């Protein structure tokens, strides 16, 4: 650690600076948000009373519905995006390189485009026949699928690149039909990558605001939209409470999906290293 800074005094000074900057830039905002969610009255520097009323209120009524809408949208959109992304990645490797580059570009493009523009495009397109989806939940899900499929696609591609060489041909030569190879060999080997993509996709979907705010129907307000409308109306503490629940839900979903050392993953890694 000390290969660059040999003076102990300078090391301590820099360590102090690092800590302070980290605390102010990254620690303080998060702490304040949590503090705001449990603040009863906050007219002075620090809240004079603490309460769980906001947090409890956020688990009922419109706010609970918003959290539920976000979770449901996230789950459905993630599953659709995974299927779409993995399917696309598996199919694209059969094409010659120039075509494949085109497919890559298509799948990755939504990441580079401002989410508001994606929302507007979907709103404009699906307000016209033949695909009249404006004002439906389906449009919300479609929007989120467009936004997160890229991550599923790149993860699946990374997994495909790391497939043990010729394992699929081997399965085929043993007499397995292509569909069987896919289900029994390829997909299980891709699973860890898809799992990570699912975690990321779910988190992104649950926090999505820019595109959703363009297309959400009145009956399907998601948590980020709810947080925005609460804070816009001046209900800052209620907004903070919903935010904390949104973060907690996202974090729990992440932990559930992206457990680094799930038994299956360990077994896969072992098999791959030949141990």
């Amino acid at each position, binding site marked *: *650690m000390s290969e*660059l*800074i*040999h003076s102990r005094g300078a090391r301590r000074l820099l*360590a102090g*600076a*690092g*800590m302070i*900057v*980290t605390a102010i*830039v*990254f620690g303080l*905002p998060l702490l304040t948000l949590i*503090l*705001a969610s449990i603040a009863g009255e906050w*007219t*002075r*520097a*620090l809240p004079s009373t603490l309460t769980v009323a906001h947090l409890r209120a956020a688990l009922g009524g419109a706010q609970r519905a918003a959290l539920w809408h976000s979770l449901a949208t996230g789950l459905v959109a993630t599953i659709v995006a995974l299927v779409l*992304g993995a399917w*696309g990645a598996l*199919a694209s490797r*059969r*094409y010659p390189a120039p075509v494949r580059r085109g497919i890559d570009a*298509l*799948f990755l*493009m939504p990441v*580079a485009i*401002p*989410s*508001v*523009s*994606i929302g*507007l*495009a979907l*709103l*404009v*397109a699906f307000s016209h026949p033949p*695909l009249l989806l404006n004002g439906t939940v389906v449009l919300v899900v479609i929007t989120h699928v*467009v936004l997160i*499929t890229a991550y599923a696609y790149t993860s699946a591609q990374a997994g495909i690149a790391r497939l043990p060489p010729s394992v699929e041909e081997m399965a085929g030569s043993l007499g397995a039909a292509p569909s069987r190879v896919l289900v029994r060999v390829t997909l299980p080997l891709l699973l860890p990558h898809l799992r990570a993509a699912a*975690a*990321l996709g779910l*988190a992104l979907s649950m*926090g999505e*605001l*820019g595109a959703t705010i*363009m297309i959400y129907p009145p009956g399907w307000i998601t948590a*980020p939209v709810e*947080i*925005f409308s609460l*804070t*816009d109306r001046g209900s800052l503490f209620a*907004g*903070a409470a919903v*935010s904390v629940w*949104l*973060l907690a839900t*996202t974090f729990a979903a*992440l932990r559930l999906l992206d457990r680094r050392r799930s038994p299956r993953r360990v077994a896969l890694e072992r098999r791959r290293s030949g141990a």
Partner: protein
Amino acid sequence: MGRAHRLSRALVASVPLVVLGVIFLYPFALLAVEAFARPGGGYGFGTFAAILAGHAFRDALFATLRIALTATATCLVLGSALALLIRFVAFPGARALGRLVDVYLAFPSFLVALSLTFLYGNSGLVRSLWTSALGLPAVDASRSFLYGFWGVVLAEVTYYTPFVMRPVLAALEVIDRAQLEVASGLGERPWGVLRRVVFPELVPALIAGGSLCLLLTMNEFGIILVMGVKDVITLPMMIYGKAIDEFDYPAASAVAICNVALSLGLNFTYRQSLERAPR
């Protein structure tokens, strides 16, 4: 393999492309139609001309670029400084910060705006501390800096700095410590080692992290919306305003087309720089 078999395989392979075409390409085609359609029928550049002639678009474009460039430059400085501190000075919290960087991508950006409101807003913690706890005279009643250019920059720096830190940390990880030792053995001072040995190794990571940061800050919307910034209108905010507040879909579509072209151009440059970067 028969012809029919190959055909069916091609059909199966094209399903995701067709779906993506319907839910992604088709909307953007219609967006273009909306932007180019003339009120009386037919197509033309009328909407674009009107948009480009007004001050609003140019102001929004400059605001977008100014915010994105300022935030990206700050992210580059802060991100590399923190990454260097994590690598060379073990400070309490350094490990946690290093790990936090990996999950940051997953959290929504607008929450930073909300947090900063509580911290630096009109009735935020810092202002209250200033007046009540320290007993200092109240800052003039005007709005906090938070609701302007610098507030947006601060929020974006907070959220996007990890996007620079991640590649820089990865690049620092692979620098051979023997190189640093040999350099100081040869008589180079720490600052010189940083400048002459470490920095050249970081350039590709800084380019990659900086371009990504620039792209994402140009596209940022949630932070500005939630912060309630009134006098800073960026391109995404302008699109939102035209569509949601004014119901002027043709104008919104035209601005969106310009914004998308800008972002895709930037993204293309970013990909190119990634490919050209050594190793």
